[in-house]
């Protein structure tokens, strides 16, 4: 049979355990708004029973520790969605900029092509007027400028994406190093012990890393191994592997793994994947179509010029000049003539003839070798840019909703509820008060027992 000292011991243990639980509660409340913080719950367990003769009495309580409440599976899903979202967001923001060049603004290709077409129709009515000829030349110049600025907008977006690649790789390396360091700390913990805040910090960094590039995580004996989606190692336990950057043949930054192998094309997801997709896939596609259009349009219009005669009766010279490298056609297209008399409106060599204007106008509406008229080829490009932009933002919204849902689920498991913590606070307060009462009561009983039979105490 246990004595009063047993009760005192149980009371003291209860005070200790409740104190630990109060610590957890106060830490939860303190970190209610800390990103990546996972709520902790106190784990109590009953102590073994005391048996004395036939009597069995309880052995009190022990605080086993504080356990962070997290769901690893949800974390992985959130990381995957974060990668996807960062990738489409990078594409979306770049495309949003690009598409302004394809918006009807007065100096875009559609508007300037319209003005050029109108100026040719006007030339038909008034072939010998130098003002009309001037307007053909000026609107031809504006059209060439529109091609130049559209091409520039595309290459600017491309080089912005290129810079993003460099910056993102630096961030990835820095995060990999921090994660490896935390992995090292976690590995020091005794087996079975909860990682607590260190693990929270690591998970938060992994979450950030997943926004930069698509990653895949495996748990090994020596901690977490993180690789890119295609298997390039970034972190293995306490060791991190830096990605490297080198300038490629096209002048753009290529991503190399720690062994120097070029892994640029295999990178997917995250800001890095999105930037590479924009830089190496989407914009080159648009640029190539724009260059084809600029080059074929110039050739077709120059051929129409050559069919006629200028005001001086000379055969029509090229109105547009394009660089010999067809990859620079849109960026470099320019008006080759400076004198309004050189517009080949005449079909018979006399300066008042408008016979060749029909051919010049037809160059704007005839089918190019690409299979479309200049207007349709441009309209197709507008559609593609618009569609890509719209897809990226639709995807971003959809993934965003998905992510909100997953975050809500994660919150349901791991987030701190102030109401819950307040309730716990009251619960532990009461428990602590009760345990204190046990101690003081036992103390009073001890006194009573020691003073038994003495009259001095009365």
């Amino acid at each position, binding site marked *: 049979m246990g004595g009063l000292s047993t009760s005192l011991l149980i009371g003291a243990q209860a005070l200790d355990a409740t104190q630990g639980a109060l610590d957890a509660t106060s830490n939860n409340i303190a970190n209610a708004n800390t990103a990546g913080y996972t709520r902790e719950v106190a784990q109590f367990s009953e102590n073994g029973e005391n048996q004395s003769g036939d009597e069995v009495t309880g052995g009190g309580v022990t605080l086993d520790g504080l356990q962070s409440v997290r769901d690893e599976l949800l974390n992985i899903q959130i990381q995957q969605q974060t990668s996807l979202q960062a990738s489409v967001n990078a594409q979306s923001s770049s495309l*949003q900029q690009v*598409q*302004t060049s*394809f*918006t*009807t603004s007065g100096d875009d290709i*559609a508007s300037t092509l*319209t*003005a050029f*077409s*109108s*100026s040719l*129709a*006007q030339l*038909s*009515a*008034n072939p*010998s*007027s130098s003002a009309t000829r001037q307007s053909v030349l000026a609107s031809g110049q504006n059209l060439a400028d529109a091609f130049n600025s559209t091409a520039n907008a595309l290459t600017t977006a491309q080089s912005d994406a290129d810079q993003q690649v460099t910056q993102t790789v630096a961030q990835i390396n820095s995060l990999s190093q921090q994660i490896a360091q935390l992995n090292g700390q976690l590995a020091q913990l005794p087996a079975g012990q909860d990682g607590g805040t260190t693990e929270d910090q690591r998970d938060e960094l992994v979450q950030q890393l997943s926004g930069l590039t698509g990653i895949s995580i495996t748990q090994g004996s020596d901690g977490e191994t993180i690789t890119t989606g295609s298997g390039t190692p970034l972190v293995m336990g306490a060791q991190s592997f830096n990605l490297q950057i080198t300038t490629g043949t096209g002048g753009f930054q290529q991503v190399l793994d720690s062994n120097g192998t070029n892994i640029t094309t295999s990178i997917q997801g995250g800001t890095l994947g999105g930037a590479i997709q924009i830089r190496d896939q989407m914009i080159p596609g648009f640029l190539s179509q724009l260059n084809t259009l600029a080059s074929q349009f110039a050739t077709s219009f120059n051929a129409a010029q050559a069919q006629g005669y200028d005001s001086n009766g000379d055969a029509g010279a090229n109105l547009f000049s394009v660089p010999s490298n067809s990859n620079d056609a849109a960026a470099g297209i320019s008006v080759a003539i400076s004198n309004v008399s050189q517009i080949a409106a*005449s079909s*018979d060599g*006399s*300066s*008042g*003839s*408008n*016979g060749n*204007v*029909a051919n010049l*106008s037809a160059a*704007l*509406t005839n089918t190019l070798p690409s299979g479309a008229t200049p*207007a*349709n080829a*441009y*309209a*197709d490009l*507008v*559609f*593609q*840019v*618009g*569609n890509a*932009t*719209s897809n990226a*933002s639709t995807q971003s919204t959809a993934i*965003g909703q998905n992510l*909100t849902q997953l975050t*809500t689920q*994660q*919150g*349901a498991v791991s*987030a*701190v*509820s*102030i*109401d*819950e913590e*307040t309730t716990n606070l*009251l619960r532990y307060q009461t428990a602590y008060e009760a345990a204190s009462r046990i101690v003081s009561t036992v103390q009073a009983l001890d006194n009573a027992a020691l003073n038994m039979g003495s009259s001095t105490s009365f």
Partner: protein
Amino acid sequence: MRIDPNMVPEILSDLQQSQVSLNTALQQVSTGKSVNVPSDNPSAAAEMVQNTIETGDVDQYTQNVTTTLSSVQSASSALSTVVTSLTQAVSLGTEGANGTNSSANLQAMATQVQGIITSVVSMANSSVSGSYLFGGTSTATPYTADSASPTGYTYNGNNDTNSVAVGDQMTVQVNLPGSQIFSNSSNNVLGSLSSLVTALQSGNSASIAKATTAVDSAVNYISQQQAFYSNAETQLTSQQTTLQQDTVTLSTQANNLIGVNEATAATNLSQAETDNSAALAAVAKVLPNSLLNYLEPPS
């Protein structure tokens, strides 16, 4: 089951969504367009490229019709003046051929006909905004005095004609060369007038009568040429109507593609405003709520 105690991310996402709707509605009302950037509706934006170009062309064709009409009408009225002058010459010739005129009278008539030639030549040299109406496609002055020529004038223009674009697949021929109207080999207007001068100067009634007949047939010939111009005028006027219809069609199409129904846009805006206020009000009500509000402060 435990629910997510942290309502902030969801609240923020809801607020953001209602803000996006509000911005979209506001933009549509203020611009009157539902498609402001290609991503708003990629296929409509693509179709608008063609629409913009066609609209620009139709505007220009309409202007072309206006300027061409004015030049065709000027040419037609110049020819009417020529007909009047020629009719005058026929009267003079008829009078000169009746055999009762003194030689001095005939000389005076010859001088009058000479004056008519000058007036016809000035009509043949008429121009509209710097372009000669009867010079073919040449920009040279059509008729200049030339003592070597039997008519006293030589034609400097050419035999070509211009056709002006007034529609995508439509051109209207707007001129006849002076060589066809005034100095045609079979119906030479200037030639017949100058023969009349010569006949009047010679005083021979028979040749005066013959020359007068030739001038008379020149009157008919010019009237026939006028038919070309009135025909062109009819074509241009009817094209003007077609172009007006095209303008309406294109602007309707543009409105269907990227325009916004004002009533719908206004309704959307007011709906978005209500949604946004409701979302904000809900946030204001929900966020401050906590168990702590209901607990007695510790004594």
